């Protein structure tokens, strides 16, 4: 065990040094690139000044969280093919932003998802709904990242006490709030770019090394991986993780639906499309992001099987952190303590950057949708909106730290998949109907957003994630009436159906402004009228 621990942690002093260096470099970048961020356009959208390529890399940075980096490759290392199924869903999902969403969102809105869904609807109720959905989704996503930070640092810095991990989470919170306050969208985007480039270079070099080690023969890599895996040949086949019961199969389908439909509706992904000057650059952003994802997810396949082949699952599962330690352990085997430190620092920066992006999104949604438009009816005093946004960022940071500390040691993977399911159920129907269905109206929007959000949350409360099994959050009692841990297969169709039903009900109350329909249609397709 001591040997394993030492191997996992590498050299904590070296790790800390590399961590501090990376954080210092990113903070310096944020400081250097930050303009004064006095206008809302600067603070939320970097003045729309990024190119498609820069934003595409930043998008991949936002999307490739520590869960993807450590979680997916770890799952492939231990369960093989079932981990790879995740990768496929995460990648394919990007066709929805490419074909349906990115360019139209850029043409229609300015800062938030609320800008788009409220465009031709009654402003105040719809903006409030959009802000509610954004805040809930961002909060779940953020909790997972923060709790992940605690676990990661336990693994790499050898911090195992609860108070030690709480301290680390607090430090994470402080740094990310600094990124957001000092850098605004511009600084945060540059952090994402730096992090994404480091991550992509790191995973591609590791994959090339692994392939080289097995003579560029995928078959022999897989063979060796199966030999050194406790599940042996089963890792080449589906079902090693999810099992082959009927419920497990359905749960897996549900999760896949949430992944493929949720991506396009994640608020922090949507907000990225406002940082480029026009729809053409928004399209280029997605194209660049897809290339980055292809590279990344192909690499996770090789790294995952490579970790199984080179490190072996016995060592991985024995290490503190279990599955999640597959990549760090592999790095240690390949490049010693230095590579381990570097990989860890990249994983740590990943968490910082993703959490900063989420904080910015949540604060923008509150300040722009709730404060400026709902409370001040669209006429806030000059400068007050950005002040509110900064204040909100601090509040969100505190909430995330508090929630993250409470979530230490919880099963956090489900939080991320829940965020995807929430986004797909609450946001996607409203966004797609707004853009592609002329009859869609205010009532339809409210039904879709609140119906999708509520059904998703209720199903989660009554799922095995909350109660009824050994790994549930609440142990001892069983109120798991809903058998699946991911609610997507029910709540996503429900969101779409409620959008239609609400529209028909709303039509009896009279129609929304028909001129705005033409305006949205023309504007979303051509960008005429948008800045």
């Amino acid at each position, binding site marked *: 065990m001591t040997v394993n621990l030492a191997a996992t942690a590498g050299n904590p002093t070296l790790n800390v040094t590399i961590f501090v260096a990376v954080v210092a470099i990113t903070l310096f970048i944020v400081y250097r690139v930050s303009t004064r961020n006095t206008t809302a356009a600067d603070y939320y959208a970097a003045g729309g000044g990024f190119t498609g390529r820069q934003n595409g890399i930043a998008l991949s940075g936002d999307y490739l969280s520590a869960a993807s980096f450590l979680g997916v490759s770890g799952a492939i290392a231990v369960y093989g093919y079932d981990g790879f199924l995740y990768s496929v869903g995460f*990648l394919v999902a990007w066709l929805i932003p490419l074909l349906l969403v990115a360019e139209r969102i850029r043409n229609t809105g300015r800062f938030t998802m609320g800008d788009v869904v409220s465009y031709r609807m009654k402003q105040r109720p719809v903006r409030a709904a959009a802000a509610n959905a954004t805040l809930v989704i961002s909060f779940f996503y953020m909790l997972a990242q923060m709790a992940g930070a605690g676990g990661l640092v336990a693994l790499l810095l050898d911090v195992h006490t609860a108070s030690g991990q709480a301290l680390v989470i607090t430090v994470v919170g402080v740094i990310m709030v600094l990124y957001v306050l000092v850098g605004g969208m511009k600084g945060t985007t540059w952090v994402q770019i730096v992090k994404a480039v480091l991550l992509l270079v790191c995973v591609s070099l590791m994959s090339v090394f692994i392939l080289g080690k097995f003579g560029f023969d995928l078959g022999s890599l897989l063979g060796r991986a199966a030999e050194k895996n406790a599940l042996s040949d089963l890792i080449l086949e589906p079902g090693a993780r999810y099992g082959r019961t009927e419920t497990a199969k359905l749960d897996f389908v549900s999760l896949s639906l949430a992944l493929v439909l949720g991506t396009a509706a994640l608020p922090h992904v949507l907000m990225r499309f406002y940082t480029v000057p026009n729809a053409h650059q928004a399209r280029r952003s997605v194209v660049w992001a897809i290339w980055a994802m292809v590279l990344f997810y192909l690499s996770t396949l090789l790294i995952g099987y490579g970790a199984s082949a080179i490190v072996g699952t016995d060592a991985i599962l024995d290490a503190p952190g279990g599955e999640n330690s597959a990549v760090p352990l592999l790095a240690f085997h390949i490049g010693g303590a230095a590579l381990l430190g570097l990989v860890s620092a990249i994983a740590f920066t990943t968490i910082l950057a993703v959490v900063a992006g989420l904080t910015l999104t949540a604060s923008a949604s509150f300040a722009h949708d709730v404060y400026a438009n709902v409370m001040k009816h669209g006429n806030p005093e000059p400068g007050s909106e950005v002040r509110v946004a900064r204040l909100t960022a601090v509040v969100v940071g505190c909430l995330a730290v508090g929630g993250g500390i409470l979530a230490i040691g919880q099963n956090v993977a489900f939080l991320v998949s829940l965020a995807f399911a929430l986004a797909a159920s609450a946001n996607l129907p409203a966004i797609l109907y707004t853009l592609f269905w002329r009859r869609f109206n205010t009532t339809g929007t409210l039904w879709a957003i609140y119906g999708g959000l509520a059904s998703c949350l209720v199903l989660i409360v009554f799922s095995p994630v909350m109660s009824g099994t050994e790994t549930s959050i609440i142990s001892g009692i069983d109120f798991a009436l809903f058998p699946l841990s991911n609610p997507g297969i029910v709540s996503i169709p429900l969101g779409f159906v409620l959008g239609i039903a609400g529209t028909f009900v709303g039509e009896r109350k009279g129609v929304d402004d028909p001129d705005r329909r033409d305006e949205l249609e023309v504007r979303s397709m051509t960008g005429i009228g948008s800045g």
Partner: protein
Amino acid sequence: MKTMPSFSREHDFAEHDDGQPDFAAIARSAEFVRLRKQVRRFVVPMTLLFLTWYLSYVLLAAYAPEFMSRRVTDNITVGLLLGLSQFVTTIAIMIGYRIFAKRRIDPQVKHLRDRVGAN
């Protein structure tokens, strides 16, 4: 393909008093209707296609594990090849859309924007 420069009046969609373009007129114009139709005719079937293809893959993995576990060569399974083919189709659709948008959509959008003086 190069677009024709605006032939008639420079800004033939009369602006409203507030300087906003006349969106209703643009929305009804033949050019816009055609543009919208062409875009939808590409993106809607393409979306349905890739979703169907992805869901069949997911359903195969869940409900036909024996098929997915079949070995093509020593350790390469049908499932792995199908998974990698999802990568290939994603790239193909992306490139296809890029070419389509550049050749067919962008010139029409530019033409419309020129006519309202939005460029």
